[in-house]
């Protein structure tokens, strides 16, 4: 399935947001996910289905003032 993750196209086998985050070996509690413009609570990741062409943003806190 083709997904656009953080602006790049990726071919990933994943049913939901949880599996996308796991695919990239990310620490779930450090990541916030947005799918097709919708920001998701972490508790809803399992239920958030992704489909071919979905645009996903994965963001995190970094150092800043």
């Amino acid at each position, binding site marked *: 399935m083709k997904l656009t993750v953080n602006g790049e196209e990726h071919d990933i086998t994943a049913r939901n947001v949880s599996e996308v985050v796991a695919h990239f070996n990310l620490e779930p509690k450090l990541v916030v996910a947005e799918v097709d413009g919708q920001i998701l609570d972490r508790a809803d990741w399992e239920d958030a289905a992704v489909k071919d062409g979905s645009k996903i943003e994965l963001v995190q806190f970094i*150092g800043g*003032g």
Partner: protein
Amino acid sequence: MKHKNLTIGGRELRSRFFLGTGRYPNPYIQNEVIRVSEADVLTFAIRRVNLEAPGEDAILQHLEEDRKFTYLPNTSGASNADEAVRIARLAKASGLSDWIKVEISANEKTLLPDPLETLKATETLVKEGFTVLPYTSDDPVLCKRLEEAGAAAVMPGGSPIGTGLGILNPYNLGLIVEDAEVPIIVDAGLGSAMDVTQAMELGADGVLMNTPVAKAKDPVKMAGAMKMAIDAGRLSYEAGRIPKKKYATASSGLPSFVSY
């Protein structure tokens, strides 16, 4: 000496030092700085995860978990209110904090805040239930407008971010403090302990710093200096300085003069 703690958005803070978490030489020094500064509020930015090296920029994994902090994410990178609101919502979805520092820069060279977009974003985010701390220009009227829009604290800049130019308009800052009914935090532009003391003596309730500590030759030592400067400035403000006069006044009265 009894110190009155600063309270923002109903939360009593342990310190008036708001510390940024960017640009430290390494995570060890950063943690030492956090410890020595005794800061309670830590600021962060939000960025896309680097999928090639996810751990590289992540900040929270480096923080010591035995201390509790107040997290203040910023909306840096936003150039208008809509972008800032989106970043704020992303930050809130982390579940770490509903505090947000609105930071909207329209000019890459100066990074000066866009006052109109900042006000717009503040209005929206207050309505959504955020505790909003806008970083803004040192304009007294604008600061009042942000307060009226529901900002929990207002954070005027001393000078542009990272310049270390100090407080370019102490007169304005004095007016802002005098008129404010929410805490005023001087954010951006401070360079050394002298600038910090000046801000606190003018009546600021706190200061937010990143670069002057992180990029000092010895960041840990500078964190200590800044902490003491905040305390000294605050005490001096509370104690009430003498008025300035043109001519001298002897410390001992004339009747005690012994030599003729």
